[in-house]
């Protein structure tokens, strides 16, 4: 455990990866199981929801809007070559609801909230606050991890649907107002080709990504070693691992869903 990110990992990387994966899985299971054990402190969950959801809202809205806008612009130049400008709305809506909404939102939340989680828990670990919780007979996983995982699980879909919406609105602004695509064609084609399933599957994805990012961040923070430097390393690793995992999981989930 002491040498987890040191020699042991260098000499036996597969063993280390498997151990981390198993540790994350166990932490996730623990946090979920502990959620059903009373007392469940709702105010901790709401606090995390505020931190993960509400405070990420601005970043997510800006990201979503500009993603939708640039999608409209790019697909307009593409579709104009064979006179299918009406499909710009479809492209924007499908891309946003299926992929970019959930993935970009999750990445933004990872960068903003995931890193903060890892840093916070890492600091608590290094300053032995977690040990103090154990001494006070408080389960640190129930007290620290469970609210974060639950909050991420519920807030990511909410952020995603907002991101979808602002992305489509951004695409509409650029496509209809700026590039002069016929509004009826834009909206009708979009409504015609986008299904409810696209939106719902995107939300399911977002929930999964929420679990991934929170579990990875908590695990990394929980198992931080090596003082302030260790906290920084944990934060970096949690962001990198979360982001990569989200993209890999996105592919797997997409191939399962569509």
């Amino acid at each position: 455990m002491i040498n987890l990110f040191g020699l042991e990992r260098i000499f036996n990387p597969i063993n280390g990866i498997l151990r981390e994966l198993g540790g994350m899985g166990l932490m996730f299971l623990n946090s979920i199981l502990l959620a059903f054990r009373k007392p469940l402190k709702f105010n901790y969950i709401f606090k995390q929801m505020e931190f993960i959801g509400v405070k990420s809202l601005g970043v997510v809205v800006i990201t979503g809007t500009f993603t939708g806008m640039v999608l409209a612009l790019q697909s307009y130049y593409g579709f104009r070559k064979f006179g299918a400008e009406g499909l710009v709305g479809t492209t924007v809506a499908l891309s946003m609801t299926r992929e970019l909404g959930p993935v970009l939102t999750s990445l933004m939340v990872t960068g903003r909230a995931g890193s903060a989680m890892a840093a916070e828990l890492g600091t608590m670990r290094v300053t032995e606050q977690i040990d103090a919780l154990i001494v006070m007979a408080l389960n640190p996983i129930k007290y620290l991890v469970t609210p974060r995982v639950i909050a991420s699980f519920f807030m990511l879909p909410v952020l995603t649907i907002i991101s979808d919406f602002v992305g489509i609105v951004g695409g509409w602004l650029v496509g209809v107002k700026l590039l002069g695509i016929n509004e009826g064609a834009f909206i009708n084609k979009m409504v015609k080709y986008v299904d409810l399933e696209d939106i719902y599957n995107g939300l399911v994805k977002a929930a999964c990504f929420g679990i991934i990012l929170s579990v990875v961040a908590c695990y990394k923070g929980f198992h931080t070693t090596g003082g302030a430097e260790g906290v920084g390393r944990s934060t970096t690793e949690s962001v990198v691992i979360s982001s990569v995992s989200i993209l890999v999981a996105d592919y797997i989930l997409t191939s399962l869903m569509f």
Partner: protein
Amino acid sequence: MNKGRLSPELKVGIVVLIGFIILFYMSVRIGKYGALGEKGYELKVYLENANGIDSKSPVLIAGVEVGRVISVRLENFKALVRIIVKEGVQVPADSTVAIKTQGVLGDKFLEIIPGKDKKMLSSGEIIKTVKTSPDFDEIFTQVSTAAKKFGDTIGEFQGLIGDKEKANIKNSIENIQAITGEFKEIIKENKQGINSVIANADDALKGLKKIVGDVEAGKGSLGMLIKDEKLYTDVKETMGALKNISKDIEEGKGSLGKLVKDDSLYNEARDTVKNLKDITDGIIKGEGTLGKLAKDESLYVETERAMKKLQKGAEGLTESTPITILGTIFSFIF
């Protein structure tokens, strides 16, 4: 938690509410039958080739979307396509289904061409008639085969025609041109005549038509001749009788037969004629009584005299007749 600031719960509540409102709005805008709430009923159709048809492919009637494909499945080597049709849209039982293409992306959709049946299909029933349209590959194959054949034909034709034939063809065409030019002039000059000829021919044809119609109907003698079988049997019988007679004659039976066949009659007739000739010769020469009668004038004179005497006697008789009659009456009374 601090005073003057919104509590975390409220903030989270507001964000979640916004999220739900957006989700609800998007669901309503995009929502289609079968997915959430909207009611419909299911129909089935078997397609030979469901290429391009997928679940969620639209189903149209007269260009209006009335439903969607739920699933496409293989059954007995045919594609079983299940579709869901909006509640309130009725499909006649003899409707036809066709696969059609739409848009730049070549999206396929199912078009239901409504039939005229009064009976409407209900849930789970099958639309039986399917209008197949050949897919692009088939069309291209056929077109390329046709083009190849056409090319071959043209090639053969080209090989067939040398310079000489070309000159001939040119001449022929020039001749045809000259002829048609002349013909045109002739027609122009005799336009009225041709018109009347055509009119007459028309009348004649009409008359002929009528006659043919009458004959067909068995009217008139020609009609009867053609239509009446009795005449035929009569003719046949007559011919039979004639045949018998000629046979009898041939065999020398009956008087006519004998007349034809027996030489003695001829000989007798010849002799008689000869005798007659002898007699007339005699008469001419004044031989015999008849000859004298013919040749001797004295008889005529005598006869005349006698006749005169007879006339006188007759006149006298005429004058004495009343007296004689009176005498006769008297003798009756007394």
